[in-house]
């Protein structure tokens, strides 16, 4: 039972990171209708920028956080303006392939800009172990779960009450009608890319704090796919919850069936979910079937 609880708690911690990245997927899908295959790479870049700041400028938690958020916003806006906006109105296949091209470019740029060795992001926080009953948990892991919950609430409120959130939902529902109502679709897309980049970047920084930075970090994006498929590609909150579920599943599979199972548990789940309920648990858009 102790082993089981330990697995569930560490599963929740890694699941919260998947959940954040999956929310990044969903924010972009919800407002632009495409899957950003470069999400994991953007996560990694933001984490590396945060690491550079922590080693060169200051290791203060607040400084690193603010700098990482600014870097993430800039990254999201630059990608949207330079790469995605010219593809507006092109077929889905072309735009999705562009994000894949972007993914491989960002992924390999790590080795040119930084290096291939793993690094720890030290901000004087996150690696201490707190005892909850008989189970040891890192403070960073608690913080990431808390952040996920706070962001879930904030995003729910944003889409429900703020004017811009409603505009984003309108563009997602029907971009032509939204344009006729005076909503600027490019601006909504830009905001979605920036927001998605920030959410994913937070996940990257937390991952770097609790574990390590390495050029293989982009695989977090692949691990977050099952989360967003499970939660529903168009459900931002659902994706967050999906991340927690995938994190737990993956850890339990790894704990009881070996590490090979841990690697593929999420992917097996994708196939099962897509066969049974392709729009996910919380998604509401029905997929066209022929």
């Amino acid at each position, binding site marked *: 039972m102790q082993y089981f609880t330990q697995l569930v708690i560490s599963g929740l911690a890694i699941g919260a990171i998947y959940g954040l990245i999956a929310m990044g997927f969903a924010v972009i899908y919800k407002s632009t209708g495409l899957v950003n295959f470069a999400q994991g790479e953007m996560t990694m870049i933001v984490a590396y920028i945060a690491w550079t700041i922590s080693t060169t400028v200051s290791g203060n938690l607040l400084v690193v956080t603010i700098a990482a958020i600014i870097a993430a916003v800039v990254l999201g806006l630059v990608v949207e303006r330079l790469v995605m906006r010219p593809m507006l109105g092109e077929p889905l296949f072309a735009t999705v*392939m562009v994000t894949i091209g972007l993914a*491989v470019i960002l992924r390999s740029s790590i080795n040119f800009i930084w290096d291939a060795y793993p690094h720890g992001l030290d901000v004087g926080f996150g690696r201490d172990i707190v005892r909850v009953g008989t189970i040891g948990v890192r403070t960073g892991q608690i913080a990431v779960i808390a952040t996920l919950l706070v962001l879930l609430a904030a995003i729910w409120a944003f889409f429900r009450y703020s004017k811009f959130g409603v505009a984003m939902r309108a563009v997602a529902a029907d971009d032509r009608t939204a344009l006729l109502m005076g909503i600027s679709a490019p601006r909504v897309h830009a905001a979605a890319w920036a927001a998605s980049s920030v959410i994913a970047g937070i996940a990257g920084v937390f991952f770097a704090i609790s574990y390590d930075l390495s050029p293989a970090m982009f695989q977090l994006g692949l691990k977050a796919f099952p989360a967003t498929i499970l939660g529903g590609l168009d459900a931002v909150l659902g994706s967050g919850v999906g991340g927690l579920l995938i994190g737990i599943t993956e850890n339990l599979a790894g704990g009881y069936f070996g590490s090979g199972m841990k690697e*593929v548990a999420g992917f097996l789940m*994708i196939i099962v979910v897509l066969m049974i309920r*392709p729009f996910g648990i919380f998604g509401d858009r029905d997929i066209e079937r022929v």
Partner: protein
Amino acid sequence: MRTGDYKQTYGELVALVDSPPVWLWSVVLVLALIGAPYALNAYALSFVTIILITVVGALGLNILTGYTGLISLGHVGFLVTGAYAYAILVSKYQMHPLVGFLGAGVVPALASLIVGAPSLRLKGLYLAITTLAFSFIINTVILEARTLTNGARGIAVQRPELFGISFDSDVAFTWLCLGFAIATLFATLNIRRSRVGRAFVAIRDNDTAARVMGINLHAYKLLAFVTSAFITGISGALYGIYLSFVSVEGFPFLLSIEALAILIVGGLGSALGAVLGTVLIVLLPEATRLVFSLFSAQMDALFSTGAQELKSMLYGLAIILFLRFQPRGLVGVWHDLRRTWVHWPLRY
């Protein structure tokens, strides 16, 4: 003066080539490729071999993504299954290499039935994600099935001997690959101009309309998967033989991206495009290295240390730039050139 393409019978419309000179030049190209191993040094020859092997795989993906319009991000899964099927049959159980090649086609084809099944319900992005998941699952399956695949240690593969001819030397192996490439090219061209190929293209262009016209979507989508996986698997077997060692690390996920980059750069849905795209994508890293090494030796050093990263960066750039500025690919450029050449000085 040639003023246009006038096709008056159905036979002319589905003919393999529309003008006799194409035959002539194709024969010249094949003869040049047969003679190439004697004229080229070992380094250049390795590029010819890689291009020929990659052409087979690209033509395989072209049937699925180019003709039928089903995006696959996990084609490396079929490559690795084909390579392992060949290695297990020939190296482990000492079967005849022809049986090995047959197995290299059949095993991925069977696997594709499992991957293809969700495609009957899913479209576009969702299918892409399913195939992506498949390519990761298959790697784990291979690593776990140690008794059959030796797990992470991989299997060593010998160059085969077929019909009394040993393909041990690099020259002979290039000819073997050339044979496979030509056979695959004819196979895909013939599929494209048959009833099956037209059904594939109809599904790509509008699946609802295709169904109304009486095309069985389930059967044809699965057929596209099976054909594509069969061809890709054989390409995987050839690649495994070329590396003389089959392991999961020999088939990185980047190969899936490379295959899609080839189709996009060449021009989707065209066999000629797949060939042109392969030549460009395979030679692109080498060409870039040559150009940069002219400028400085420092660049040359950078290229040798970060070769893999540089390769993926170039593939990514090629994908983005072609989709942005030349969505029809190299085959589009070729058609424009040919039209200008025929009609010059007139515009059209």
